[in-house]
Structure formats: structure tokens, C-alpha cells
């Protein structure tokens, strides 16, 4: 999608002056900027993963056709039902599970695989760097969505395939950030000291590089998480992601779109949750960046 390039999106390391001013302004506003989105995300995680195990929700896919098309605030269906009778509220929660699972998996793969590749490229430089960077360049030049669509079409749509497809793109993105961050670190004195004292390569990487670039990667990963959720939604919206009748926010929006004039809430409700989740992730990422003065 319009996933902008990481190192240029996360504003440069030096937006400190603004942060300094904000720090001077007052702690409670900053605290709110952190804890409000964090709180919302925790709430969503709890609702999506914990609540269905405690409280029995209507089945998100086995809705009875006798209850088709009920409006929100109907008895037993706080968000109403879709045209085949599935409860919208429970579809929101189960769809949320998918969003978080895919987001987490893709981001984790990107961080670990991409991160390692980036660090290796940055640290060793030379031929290793060239090869890795070229490969990452190729992957970034390739349109993400097309690959995901083709994988879904070729292997069949499923959550796992969505994760594979999106990981192919998160790896180079994290790889590039890790590489730039490593390059920036490489020239610092403590690094030179470590090399001179004969510490082995991978130990240097593990003990010095990783801890130092982690904050930057972590704050970016919150932004990336949001992008992945939107991408998964896009795949499902087009019908190449999570297959019907399983719930996914994207496919709920696509389905709702078909009857927008008659029941706009079928689009508005999943859209609102999608937006709120991604906004919270972005706000949290910004707040952490501010706090850690990255």
C-alpha cells in the first residue's frame, strides 16, 4: 500500500528540540499520550483474546439465517447481524484476533530475520553488505500487494499464507532500518574499542549492536504493525486474504460495502475498530519515540 519507507517516515533522530520543549511543558499530557493508546490496545487485546474464552459469544461464522440483517442494538446482538445472520460483535472480536495475530507474526519475522540481515550487512560491510542490500532492494521494488495476491491465489487464501506473503515485505523494511542504524553505530568509539579488544563479531553484534538499535526498531515496529493490519485488511477486502466465512475486518468491510446504502453500520463498525487500532499503534509509537528520545 502506501507503506512509506521506514527510516524516512520515523522522523530523524534529531527531533529532540521539540521533545525537550514538550518535556518542559508538563508530564501529564505526555503520560496521557502514552497511556491512552496503550490502554486502548490492551483493552482490544483483552477483548479479542481473553474475553471469548471466558464468556460465550455467538458463533462468528455459524450464524442462523433466522437472524439475518438485524440492526445494531438488537436484543442479543449489540452490533447487529450481517446478511447471513452472523453476530457482528463477535466477528469484530474474532476478526481482531486475526489482525493481531497476523500483525504480530509478520512484525516478529521482520524484526528477527530482517533485523539480523540488516545488522550483518551493516556490521560486516563489503561483499556481504552488497549482496544483502541488493536482495533487499529487489524485494522492496517488487509490489507487495501483487505478491500477496498471487500467493493467495496460487496456494489458496489462509491466515498462514497471508503471514508468509506479508513477511516477504517486512523483512527488507526492517533490514534496511537495522542496516542504517548499525552503520551509524559502527563508527562510535565503544564499537572501535570492542573490535580492538578482539571481541568476536557475533558477540559484538549481540552485546552491543542489538541493545542499541532495539529501541529504534521497536518504535518503528509499532508503526509497521499498523501497516500490516491495514494490508491484511486490504487482502481480505479484495478476497485474497482470510477466506469467507471466517471473520476479518477487511472482509467485513468488503461485505458491508455491498449493502452500504441499506446498512452502513456494517462498514462503519469494522472501519472504526480498524482505525482506532491503527491510530493507537501509531500514537504509541510516537509517544515511545518521544520518551526514549530516539
Amino acid at each position, binding site marked *: 500500500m502506501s507503506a512509506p519507507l521506514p527510516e524516512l517516515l520515523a522522523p530523524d533522530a534529531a527531533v529532540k528540540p521539540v521533545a525537550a520543549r514538550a518535556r518542559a511543558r508538563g508530564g501529564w499530557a505526555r503520560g496521557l499520550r502514552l497511556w491512552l493508546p496503550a490502554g486502548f490496545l490492551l483493552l482490544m487485546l483483552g477483548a479479542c483474546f481473553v474475553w471469548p474464552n471466558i464468556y460465550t459469544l455467538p458463533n462468528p461464522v455459524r450464524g442462523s*439465517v433466522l437472524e439475518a440483517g438485524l440492526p445494531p442494538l438488537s436484543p442479543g446482538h449489540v452490533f447487529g447481524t450481517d446478511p447471513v*445472520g452472523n453476530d457482528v460483535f463477535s466477528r469484530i472480536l474474532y476478526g481482531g484476533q486475526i489482525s493481531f495475530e497476523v500483525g504480530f507474526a509478520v512484525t516478529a519475522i521482520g524484526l528477527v530475520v530482517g533485523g539480523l540481515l540488516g545488522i550483518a550487512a551493516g556490521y560486516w560491510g563489503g561483499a556481504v553488505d552488497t549482496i544483502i542490500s541488493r536482495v533487499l532492494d529487489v524485494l522492496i521494488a517488487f509490489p507487495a500487494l501483487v505478491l500477496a495476491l498471487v500467493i493467495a491465489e496460487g496456494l489458496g487464501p489462509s491466515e498462514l499464507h497471508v503471514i508468509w506473503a506479508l513477511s516477504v515485505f517486512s523483512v527488507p523494511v526492517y533490514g534496511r532500518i537495522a542496516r542504517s542504524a548499525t552503520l551509524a553505530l559502527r563508527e562510535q568509539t565503544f564499537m572501535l574499542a570492542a573490535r580492538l579488544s578482539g571481541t568476536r563479531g557475533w558477540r559484538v553484534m549481540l552485546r552491543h549492536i542489538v541493545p542499541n538499535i532495539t529501541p529504534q526498531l521497536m518504535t518503528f515496529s509499532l508503526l509497521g504493525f499498523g501497516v500490516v493490519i491495514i494490508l491484511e485488511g486490504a487482502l481480505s477486502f479484495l478476497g485474497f486474504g482470510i477466506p469467507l*466465512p471466517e471473520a476479518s475486518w477487511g472482509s467485513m468491510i468488503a461485505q458491508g460495502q*455491498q*449493502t452500504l446504502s441499506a446498512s452502513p453500520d456494517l462498514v462503519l463498525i469494522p472501519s472504526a475498530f480498524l482505525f482506532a487500532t491503527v491510530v493507537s499503534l501509531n500514537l504509541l509509537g510516537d509517544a515511545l519515540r518521544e520518551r526514549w528520545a530516539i
Partner: protein
Amino acid sequence: MLALTAAACSSASSSSSSSAAPAANGAPRAGGSLTVLEATGYSGDWPDGLDPATNIDGAADQDYMDAVYGELFELGPKGAVIPDLATGYSISTDAKTITLNIRQGVTFTDGTAFNAAAVVWNINRDLKSACTCKPTWPVKSVTATGPYTVTIVLSAPDGAFIDEIFDSTADWIASPTAVQKMGEKAFAVKPVGAGPFEVVSDTLSSALVLKRNPGYWQKGRPYLDNLTFKSVASDEAGYEALLAHEGQVYVDMSTPSLLQQAAKNSSVEVENQLSTSPYDLQLNTLTPPFNNPKARQAIYAATNFAPILQHVFDNMYPSVQGFTGPGGICYDPTASGYQGYDPTLAKTLVQQSGLDQVTINLGTIQNLVAQETTEALQTQWAAVGIKSTIHAYALAPLIAQFTSGKWQSMVQTAGSFDPAAGVGVGFRFSSVSPFSGVHDPHLDSLLNQAAALTDMSQRCALYTQAANYIAKQYYGPFYFAFAPANVAVKGVVGPGLTQPLPAVVVTPTVLWEDVAYSS
């Protein structure tokens, strides 16, 4: 029903002029531009162009074909056969020789003469084409036996020939000169016919811009100066476009909640058409699991359509057990021996046949109604232990699924204005059709006999037998007699828009030459 059948199957030629009378809204006035919206996935696509011999989408694109080519015979209100570019016909008593009388004084829009030779050229070309859309008559010869007379000799009797013409590519006559001069590829994009409109520009599967044919044979027609067809993504997109004044007509709306919404909207009129093609579930009896009759019976017993009809479709359509609908001939909603809903029996049969061991591939067309129906079925079946995955296909990939033979079950529509015609029964249940999952000589003979006769009561009796036989063999359950609606803004009148029409192939053909703004 008898009046309908009598009108449809007269064996004397008729020479009345096109009669569709505009409805109550006011007299039609000449002039104006109309934009018609159609949804992709079925009628809104014409990827192969509009050449009758090569347009795989065939009758799905009838709106465009009719506007450009006109028809030899048209199916009008109340099932009347309206002579358009042909003036009449006669069928021999052995139903093997059909004579068509071609209208005189007609020219194609490129100036060349429209005559028997042109018709013969076209029909022979259609028969020789490699298209799955080609006519399926057992033709021995097609010849011009006079400057305006065409004689078709069949090797087997076919009493339903004229009814079958509506669904057939032979109804659309292309200018032979233009095809030869432009070459097939270019012709498909800018076809030349003798219909009420001619092509200004054509962006395949997106927009077809037509203007009035000044040399059209019927004086005073068409009423409209400009007719544009645009493709939209869905019923909703079409409805929004109507509300946004980007179009005046939306053809084939089937989404129930939108229909209800439109009915409440005073700026548009919803015209429900007369169904001739019930929804059915085809089962592929040539491959597992449905080569096992017990498995098929389990499907029948697992399906309860009444609540689906009520809650999803607001009881808008009658439920049926056979392939006939209220808008067509030989309508009979019940079949004797039809296995009805019985969940206990279903569970037993599922276990006996091993249906619980497999996941069924349940296919359908990419259309909201079809998809909702399919999802509801999936839920019902799951309750008795049948697992399934749903695939929704656009028309071209759907055809590919059938031709590959790899499908297991497919929600489709079966039936036509005349069961012998087009997407009739043979299309879905005969041994020779690529879109059928049944190879049963007994059923073939019933259907062939019925098609061969000209006597209506005999034909209907045979069709009843066929429906009962299909029920007995559990070849595929039928659901309800569906017909989509056309939505038009107030002030537009015409057959199909303010007057219901029987559907030829699932969706009725609007007679565009008679559509107008009312004064």
C-alpha cells in the same frame, strides 16, 4: 399459463409489428440520453467483445447485443414472441424443418443489405465457431431459400426452436461485410448490426457508448438518441451511481436489502421481473463424492430453504422443487418424491455415504445473492456434519471450472423461459452439456422428446416427468424461482423498466428500442 403457452408456441407466422406498450407513467417522448449501469461478474463484463460467434459470455451480454444487433425474434411482455428483424416463422409437422421470414427493407448500419443470405452466413458461422456459446441445435443445413427466406433443416425434431432462439447467438445478426472487412478482432470491439443503436465507442467490460441508428427499420424507434452502458462493481455501486445521477437505469439488482431500500426511495422505481430460472445446486455425479446417490440425498435432506427465503430474501420469491418458474411455460412448483428437509435422515446418510470424511468444494457465481445463499447453505450443512469451502467465481473462471470437470457442487440457476432453451434444463442436466454434472440417458431422452414436440400439453407432461425423475435420482435440489429487478429513476419508461418481462436467461432483456423518457 395456457394463454402464455398459446402465444409462445403458435405454429403460424405472425406479422404484427413490435407492440410493447409503455406503462402508466406517461407517454414516451423521443430524444434524450440514457446511461445504463450493469454489475461486473456477470452482465457487466464483455472481455471478448460483442461478436456473436466469439462472445463467450453469450447471453449474459444480451443487453448490449440486443441494442447493437436487434433480434430476429424478441421475448416481450407476457411471453409474447415479437418479430423484430424476422417477420415470422413456420415449423414443419415433424418439427425438423424451420422456415424463417426475414424482414425486408432493412440495412446494416454500414449500408449493406440485411437479407436471408446475411442471416444464413451468420448462423453457419455461429455453428462452426469454437465458442461454448454456440447454438446447440442438431443442424443439418441452413440455407437461403429465397431473398428473404431462411430454411433450417435439423437432424432431430425440435418443437421449441423459436423459444430457443431468444437464448441463442443466432438471434443476433452481424454484418458479414463488416466482419470480413474489419477482421474478427476489430469487429468484436466495434460491431456492426441492424439494431436500434450503433457503436460510437467501446471500452471492453467498462463502457459501451451507442447512438441512435437513423436507418433503423422501425419508424419512430428508438426513442433515445444516446444509450450508454457502464460497468460498475456491484449492486451497491450501481445504486449509488443512480442516486448520484450518474446513470438512470440499473439492470439486474438482486441484493435484498438494497431492493427494500430502493423500494422506499421515491426517486426510483423498482420493477420485479418474472422468474423463469430457479436457483439450484448442481451436483457433479461424475466424480466423488456425489457419484454416490446417498451423498446426494443427504444434501437434499440437509437443506431447509424456507427460513433462508424468509430471512434473507424477505419471501420475495416462490420456492420450487423443479426447473420451472412462474414467468415461463410449463410452470410446476412441486415434484413428486422430492426429498425434503430431514436433519435426522441427513445425519444418517452423511455417515453412510462418508460425506463427513471430505470437505466439499461449494462453488457459485460472484454475486451477492448467490454468495449469501451459499453461505446460508454452508451453515445448514455444517449442522449435520457436512464440511464445505466456498468459492465465488466471475463468469469466465466459472466456465473454466465446469469445463475442467473438477467441480463438485455449484450453486447456479437452471431453467429458462422454455425449459428446452438456453440455460434451460439441458444446459444443467443433459449428457452433452459441458455445464452439466449428469450423464443419464433416460433423462436425456425425456428432455429430447419434450423439445421435439410442438404440442404444449405433451411437452409440459414430459417436463413434469423429468422434474420428478431428477428428484428421484437426487441430481440436484432446487431452491426458489429467482428473478432480479431493474431499477430506474422516475421518468424513464419501457418494457423491463416499468413493465415486467419474463427472463430469457436468468435476467430479462430490456427492449431498448422501446425505452424512453416520459413526457
